[in-house]
């Protein structure tokens, strides 16, 4: 079966001014969604979050550092590994994730195995 990577971007801004209660609700939504996926078997690896900030090495070897997060809504905040029959299914599952609801996006990319699709 094909494997996909869900790449989560953005969704930080909306939470910045959220109350502790709202933050907890969002986290609970994630935990429930991931639990369901693991239980149903289509989540291979829930993945992990990525810390904001960090650094980018540019083409000219200059380095862009620090608060990348605060400005760019496109910052990758985490990833997960998925296994489903096709892209359409993966899209449906991503729609159910808490990401769109919290103001972020999910990028879906198929993984290759030696250049070929996973059997």
């Amino acid at each position: 079966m094909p494997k996909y990577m869900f790449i989560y971007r953005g969704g930080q801004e909306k939470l910045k001014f959220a109350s502790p209660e709202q933050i907890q609700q969002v986290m609970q939504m994630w935990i429930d969604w991931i639990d369901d996926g693991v239980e149903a078997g289509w989540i291979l690896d829930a993945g992990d979050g990525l810390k904001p900030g960090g650094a980018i090495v540019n083409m000219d070897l200059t380095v862009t550092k620090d608060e990348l997060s605060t400005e760019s809504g496109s910052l990758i905040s985490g990833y997960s590994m998925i296994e489903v029959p096709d892209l359409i299914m993966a899209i449906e599952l991503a729609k159910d994730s808490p990401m769109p609801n919290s103001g972020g996006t999910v990028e879906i990319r198929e993984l290759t195995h030696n250049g070929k699709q996973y059997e």
Partner: protein
Amino acid sequence: MKQSTNQLVEHFFRHESANLIAVLTRAFGMRRIDLIEDMVQVAILEAMHAWKQRGVPENPAAWVHHVAKNRILDSIRREKTYEKAIALSGLSRSDQSITAQESMVDQWLEKEELPDSLLRMIFVCCHPSLERKTQIALTLKTLCGFGISEISRGLLLPSETVKKRIQRAKHSLATANVRLELPSDDQLTQRLDVVHDVLYLMFNEGYSTSHGTEPIRDEICEEAVRLCHLLCESPYSSPSTKALLALQLFHAARLDARTDENGAVILLEDQDREKWNRCLIGTAQSWLANSKTDQPTRFHFEAAIAMQHCISPNVEATDWNSIVNFYSRLIQLRDSPVYELNQAIAMGQAGDTGEAFSQLQNLRDSDDMKHYFLLDCAFARIHELEGNTKAAIDSYLTALSKTVVPHEKTLLEKKLRKLADSG
């Protein structure tokens, strides 16, 4: 398998945020409260990102504490560096050791030490220099970890108003650099009175029947009970604190029975008493027993009245004579037309409708209650008890002609329909 064990208890972040704000403010001062709140927010967001995919760690509280503490210490270290630069330039500044403060914070965050910081924070939020409504808003924000939007929904105030009130309060406490201290013995009674009033009003804000229901309002009640309980378990409580807790618990026991599935209010006489929480009633009774004193306060009598309702199988079997007496004691303590109104109804229920009418008539002659629709409702109730349906209907119609909020209107109309059907 669902990782239900991994899920957090309800309101975890909210309460941890309150704990952290209390401890960090105690260590680093009221003047840094804005910075502290920001750092606590960052720590909670960080926890969310770290936990959402991998699950909650074994000791989530310690995790959040650790992050928040380090964030604030980093920030203060930078501040100290700046201060040192100022000192070198010739201005003197005492340099407190951050290491000492850090170990204090660690100690105060220990489970058994936490209540002390929270109690100090209660006394700061209920500072006598602040207005009552501001005290409530600040308590909800700082000690209960509510967000501005939740507070404004709970207190039925515009968000901007709540925000401004809280900002001004924090600013004035920060400028005065109010310390997180427990009041000294000679001040304790006075300060405790203010705290009692705030917790009483906070509970009422959540409980008040005049606004319909919203989950947030039940939560305000829960928080008032939690703080009152915290105070009762401390050496700073008085018999009055315990009576207040009993009163809140008697009311809380009836919360689930007071609204129907559409959120409409059900009056005491129509409530399904099977739905009352026996366990809470029992707890309330033991706190009331525990509150005995030679100088009972209004909380004692109000709790005693609430108890009479709670332990009675129905309206008719209620000990209305005792309730009338408790209201007399209350009126001796503080003159209040609301007490007199309620007393009149209890008199009627006890069978003395004549006395009830004359008390209600006195209230109608005074200015306080004249325009208040509940006075007409009380008249209606007594007419009803006398079996005079027509007069009861007339009184309810008068009540309807006065200023009432939509949900009270619904309630009155329901009453009227019921009467019309029976008559």
